[in-house]
């Protein structure tokens, strides 16, 4: 009896549901705030101009993280050079040209699933194919290619979504005006999909900048006394540098480790925020 009334009291269940859902949300937000707070609090003191622009000294316990920042930038640029054209072209083909048949659906499914492959598997794949089979060695080239394969699903998926969000009527009108299919895509579809594609690119960049496992075997150097000089050189990179200093080098000051983490976090977060701003502006402008 009592249970029945309890269950059917809409005011009480409303309160319980609200409290439950609210506390779940708080529990989700808390760790994020906590991570940020800890990293900023412990790493802030290490941040200085020298930290950002100097080479590491004394077994990386002192000096800066300049080569790691440079390496990460190189890797991000390299990743985009390979993944952006390939991903965008493939997405255009899948959205605009491919017939909706079994094979196409399989390809789309494969791409979605590619996004779920653990990043260390990409690393191993990169080691096998690029480093050893193609004999690129542990190099920026091999690392960029590995990261490019990892971010391809992100770029393809967001590009496809961006293309799908362009109304079908734009294509119809354009074709009805005697504009060819490719010209239609180029002039009536792509300009309106561009902000969406850009969002995907930024997400891909932040992913490529932050991952450790794929670069572990393919490019990352423990310590280099100089900057890389060609794409066949190894490079230091922020995520791997952080890993090294946290586990491999004894007696590193806490602030140096957290300072490195903070720099990485700022790089990745600011790119994510940029992606959000671009998307928000796109939504506001979109009126169809």
């Amino acid at each position: 009896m009592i249970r029945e009334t309890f269950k059917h009291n809409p005011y009480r269940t409303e309160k319980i549901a609200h409290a439950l859902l609210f506390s779940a949300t708080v529990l989700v937000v808390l760790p994020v705030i906590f991570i940020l707070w800890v990293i900023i609090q412990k790493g802030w003191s290490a941040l200085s101009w020298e930290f950002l622009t100097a080479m590491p000294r004394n077994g990386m316990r002192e000096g800066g993280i300049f080569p790691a920042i440079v390496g990460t930038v190189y890797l991000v640029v390299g990743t985009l050079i390979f993944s952006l054209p390939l991903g965008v072209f493939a997405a255009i083909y899948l959205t605009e040209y491919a017939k909706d048949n079994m094979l196409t659906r399989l390809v789309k499914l494969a791409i979605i699933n590619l996004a779920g492959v653990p990043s260390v598997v990409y690393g191993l794949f990169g080691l096998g194919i690029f480093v050893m089979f193609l004999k690129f060695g542990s190099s920026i080239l091999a690392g960029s290619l590995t990261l490019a394969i990892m971010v391809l699903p992100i770029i393809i998926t967001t590009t496809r979504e961006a293309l799908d969000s362009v109304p079908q009527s734009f294509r119809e009108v354009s074709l009805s005006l005697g504009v060819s299919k490719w010209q239609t895509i180029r002039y009536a579809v792509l300009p309106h999909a561009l902000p969406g594609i850009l969002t995907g690119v930024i997400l891909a960049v932040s992913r490529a900048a932050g991952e450790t496992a794929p670069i572990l075997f393919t490019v990352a150097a423990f310590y280099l006394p100089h900057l890389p000089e060609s794409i066949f050189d190894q490079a230091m990179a922020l995520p791997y540098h952080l890993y090294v200093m946290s586990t491999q080098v004894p007696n590193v000051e806490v602030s140096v480790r957290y300072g490195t983490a903070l720099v990485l976090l700022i790089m990745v977060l600011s790119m994510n925020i940029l992606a959000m701003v671009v998307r928000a502006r796109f939504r506001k402008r979109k009126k169809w």
Partner: protein
Amino acid sequence: MAIVEVQNLNLAYGDFPALKNVNVHMEKNTITALIGPSGCGKSTFLRALNRMNDLIEGVKTTGNILIDKEDILDAKTDLVSLRKKVGMVFQRPNPFPLTIMENILFAPKIHQTAQKAEYAVIVEECLRAVLLWDVLKDKLHKNALQLSLEQQQRLCIARLLAVKPEILLMDEPCSALDPIATERIEELMWMLKANYTIVIVTHNMQQAARVSEHTGFMLLGELIEFGRTKDIFTYPQDQRTNDYITGRFG
């Protein structure tokens, strides 16, 4: 002289026959209306004339459609030049989310049919042809989506005229408009008739009676009756036409 000559046109979406043995011809500089209940195939017929049905997978078309004596159903037909010649106005006004000027110049720029110096002239000519020039001449850089629906539809017609077509296909061009806007678009159609051949699909029988010189009544994919609009609406030869125009079904 017949500009459009349709012979034994059959069209099927997969197994579903959408057009059955349609024969019709249309004269230059006339307005032809197609009426009939929803799903009778009138839009399909219209979209056969500029091969827009090709966009749908699994469409099978047989028969002949001669436009200026050339069979456009031929596999070798160049769709780009066909569609430049046979333009289309859609049910919902669908300007691009660009400025008025960019909308009109969209196709001429891609086709490279005009020099940069001619752009202003083209915009003015096309807007004048649809009676928008006086209203919009100071707002050419305004976004087209801020116009009223009627103005948007006129702009879409202007955008089409910039391609210099010969035949205008209009697929229920007034169905998103109010009665006053509808009347004004109909007046525009009469004006355009001097230079273009117009085929209009409409749900609205009064509209067909007002704007067209020839009317075809379609039912379940067949062209039941075709003739002078006056005759169709006063002395329909077929019982089904009579039932439809007197409002017994549809």
